[in-house]
């Protein structure tokens, strides 16, 4: 603001008087929580990552032993990394593509928008729950819903969840089934794009396809970036569905051994807490690296309007 009236300035001066005492009182719960449940534990797990610790005897310092075990002597760790990578890098683009496609169709002022939106969002609300994982197990069972449907057209489907090469696919399907949440976010973004842009493009003779790539995508790119980041962080941490579908084993043949699931097994079944802590930090590094790469590349495709 260019003009500052004396009275307002006086007002502002009084307001910017620090209220440190009050702030401390209001923030006390958060501060205690941050120190006791976030910062403290993070430092502690950083320390434990370099130790051998089984909860009963004192932690024993083993240097980078846990990390060299991960990449040198633990095929299961590498397997969990592979499974998670496939899940993240196949599931995320698929669900975002669906989300965007349906959002674009829905954004045309169709009657029943609220109904479609709610119905498609509903699976996201239930998403990661055990009840849905149980249902999924039944749906993809040898004589479950999917194979009953396939039988109608004469195809004899496999037992999806007990075949090593299809089990992970069912979990990716479960992830894609929840595309409603990013779709709702896309819809909110699409509504913001001014109608005049499309009208102008139409006058210039641009096809719908062209309009999508030249108007919709650039203007929606910040929201696509937001969705992508959220989805990546979430997928890295997926746990319950894999646990339920494989009875906690990550089977068949370790084909659904998600990172989180393996971390759980090492830390809370084998009580190899040092290794679990090292895995947790490795997850932070890996997920952080993916998000960072995404962030760096965003400069080339995310357009923030001026």
């Amino acid at each position, binding site marked *: 603001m260019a003009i500052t009236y004396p009275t307002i300035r006086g*007002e502002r001066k009084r307001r910017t008087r620090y209220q*440190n005492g009050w*702030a401390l*009182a*209001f*923030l006390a*719960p958060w501060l205690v*929580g*941050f120190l*006791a449940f*976030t910062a*403290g*534990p*993070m430092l*502690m*797990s950083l320390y*434990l990552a370099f130790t051998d610790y089984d*909860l009963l005897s004192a932690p024993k310092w083993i240097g980078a032993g846990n990390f060299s075990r991960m990449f040198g002597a633990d095929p299961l760790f590498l397997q969990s990394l592979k499974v998670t990578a496939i899940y993240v890098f196949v599931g995320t683009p698929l669900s975002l593509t669906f989300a965007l496609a*349906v959002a674009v169709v829905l*954004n045309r002022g*169709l009657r029943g928008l609220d109904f479609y939106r*709610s*119905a498609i969002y*509903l699976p996201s*609300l*239930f*998403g*990661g*729950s*055990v*009840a849905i994982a*149980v*249902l999924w197990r*039944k749906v993809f*069972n040898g004589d*479950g*819903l999917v194979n009953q449907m396939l039988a109608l057209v004469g195809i004899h489907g496999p037992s999806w969840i007990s075949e090593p090469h299809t089990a992970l696919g069912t979990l990716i399907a479960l992830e894609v*089934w929840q595309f409603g*949440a990013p779709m*709702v976010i896309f819809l*909110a973004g699409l*509504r*913001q794009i001014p*109608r005049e842009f499309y009208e102008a493009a139409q006058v210039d003779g641009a096809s719908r396809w062209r309009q999508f790539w030249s108007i919709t995508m650039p203007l929606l790119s910040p*929201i696509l*970036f*937001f969705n992508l*980041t*959220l989805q990546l962080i*979430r997928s890295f*941490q997926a746990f*319950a569905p894999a646990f*339920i579908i494989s009875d906690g084993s990550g089977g068949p043949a370790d084909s659904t051994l998600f990172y989180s699931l393996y*971390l*759980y097994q090492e830390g*809370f079944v084998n009580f190899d807490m040092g290794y679990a802590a090292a895995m*947790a930090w490795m*997850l*932070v590094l890996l*997920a952080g690296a993916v998000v960072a790469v995404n962030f760096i590349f965003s400069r080339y495709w995310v357009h923030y309007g001026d």
Partner: protein
Amino acid sequence: MATERLAAIRDDADSRPAVRRWAPGRRLLAHFALIVVTLVMLYPLVWMVASSFKPTDEIFSQPGLIPRHLQPSNYAEGWRGVSTAFSIFIENSLLISLFAIVGNVISCSLAAFAFARLHFIGRRIAYATMLVTLMLPTHVTLVPQYILFNKLGWVNTFYPLFVPHFFAVDAFFVLLMVQFIRSLPRELDEAARLDGCNPWKTYRYIVFPLLRPALVTTIIFTFIWTYNDFFKQLIYLNDVELFTVPLGLRQFLDSTGDSSWGPMLAMSTVALLPPLVLFITFQRRIVDGVATSGLKG
């Protein structure tokens, strides 16, 4: 911040109808496509409810939705459970969720008021720190938290599942409330101050009551997250009497395997009822909550 952008987008959405319509023919096609998508999305859920009323052998011999032999006893059998009644699991889940909600409402609103309205040294750093915790995978604090709660003798109790919520660990809700408080006119605070309200009274009598929409969103999502959570409950609860709905379902699955589909699907249906009722009641607010802040189910 992307979320703030989204909040701004939503505010504009109603005042600026930027909608382009399809031509009539295409509109019909669009409806057709959407109906197919919606059916595919909802079919597994409908199938689950239908199957929960069928005898187990009919579930995998008859793909149709309507049961030939109605078998409501699936519900009775599931409800009795393997060793413990399902009602106990529901009670436990609701109890934990209730405490988590109370904790989040109090602690997150206090923190949000400080971030949005008070001037203090280190505000920027504290706020940025809080935002960073949003992005952290929970795994990195998991092991030490377990050790901590184990030392406190809290393993196999409900405490680890709700006590942290009294300390504003869900930064998402703090962020949500900060944005909401910032949208409230400052003149209200000023007026209160001139009338002799200290920050506590301003919070208690001005901001907190006005915060209601954000609090409702917080309550809904705290409930859904706590109710759906599996990892922490799996780690911390060992006794069957303390089991929650997800653990109860899992126990049922473990002990009956794939033999009793009927009761299993019946209890899965029951398990999804509380979030479903909540969704039907607060549809708008839930969808808006997702659109503005990226909260997921």
